[in-house]
């Protein structure tokens, strides 16, 4: 690994942590996942093609490690996120509004954690990381059509969970595309 790749990897850490947090819903598990992904990436850096996106490659490594861990029973695959409420409070916001926002965001995070793993990773890559459908398909090694179907099921399920009257009670179903 050359120095520039090293620096790029370090610069990616916040985003890797965000993706991992969205996947696992737990700070500790997320950082363990980031650590494992970095170790694997360093070990296999020869497989990365310079000139292609390092972030997509590392997201893919992380996603694979995460799915493996779930399959091996090392992770539950679902967590209720614990987030410091203070960090959610925008300055100058009155208390009531801040509380509502916090509750909404908390509900969204809980909803994301209820999604099936396959839908969750697609949702996070597209909606949080801002990747295109095509980039997401390449990162995850799945067809674009599968990205679309997983994403729409995730989004509609999330809308029901967060916005619907039975918010919090609905578990997201979902088979595979």
């Amino acid at each position, binding site marked *: 690994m050359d120095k*520039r790749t090293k620096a790029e990897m370090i610069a990616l850490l916040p985003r890797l942590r965000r993706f991992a947090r969205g996947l696992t819903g737990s700070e500790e598990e997320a*950082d363990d996942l980031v650590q494992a992904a970095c170790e694997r990436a360093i070990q296999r850096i020869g497989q990365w093609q310079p000139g292609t996106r390092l972030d997509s490659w590392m997201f893919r490594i992380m996603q694979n490690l995460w799915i493996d861990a779930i399959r091996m029973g090392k992770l539950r695959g679902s967590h209720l996120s614990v987030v410091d409420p203070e960090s959610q409070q925008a300055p100058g916001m009155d208390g009531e509004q801040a509380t509502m926002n916090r509750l909404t965001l908390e509900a*969204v995070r809980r909803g994301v954690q209820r999604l099936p793993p396959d839908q969750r990773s697609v949702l996070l890559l597209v909606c949080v990381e801002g990747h295109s459908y095509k980039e997401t398909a390449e990162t995850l090694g799945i067809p674009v059509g599968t990205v679309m179907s997983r994403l729409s099921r995730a989004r509609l399920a999330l809308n029901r969970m967060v*916005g619907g009257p039975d918010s919090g009670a609905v578990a997201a179903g979902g088979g595979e595309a």
Partner: protein
Amino acid sequence: MKQLDANTLVAYADGELDTESAALVEALLTEDAEARDVMGKLRDSASLIRAAHGHVLHEAVPDRLLDIIDAAPLSDEAGGEVVPRHIVNMILDAPDDEIEAGVPSLVGAVQKTEPASVIPMGRRRSIAAFATAAVFAAAMVGGGMMFEKYSSALNQGGMTHQARAVTAMNDPWREAAFQEALETRKSEAAVIWANPENGRSGAIVPVKTYRRDDGTFCRAFRTVDTGAAPDQPNYGVACREPGEEGRWIRTVEAIAAPGAGAKLQF
């Protein structure tokens, strides 16, 4: 709402539809209140999902993660630092008198016939990576290469910065680091030196090793010097010439000249 499937609506909300399909969705949205409602929720939820995870970006990254990447071994492969072989060959194959004359023809040949052979700034990784101190920035110039005879840069004299360059380049600490770097360091591993007597410092980085046809080992190297004059060579090739007691002798040194688009990566 029934005419279009959920995938299409979601893709429209994400701006992923082509013009034709998007027009279909827009036609539906104008006439169907339920579709508009769903679209609004889809867009809101996308922002919410993003907002719900944004705080992680502002957290301090745990040291254990930084340490892992920090400790990763650096590759010996020269990567982007490789001196194009044909340039090296041109230097080495040039008759001695041409080199003695300051290689003007070589400069012309490189610039006229091989415009693509310049080493782009973005590839000059190892230098950029360790040149964290601002004083090193002065040496980080240019995308274009211009070859200039080592001794001619030293002998022109007269101007202050050139006089300073002479002394800096003759610095015994620098020379010791130079020999050490070429003899003992793998490619891209820097020897950083500092002369406590005059405060000068710098680094020598071998970037590529090869064997000349006669079997002599040669290495391309880069140098960084604090307070370097703009015309001070920062790049070159040295060979462990027979009959020099194992010392590395500079075959040629060159200046990376200022060029368009030059930009520090770090």
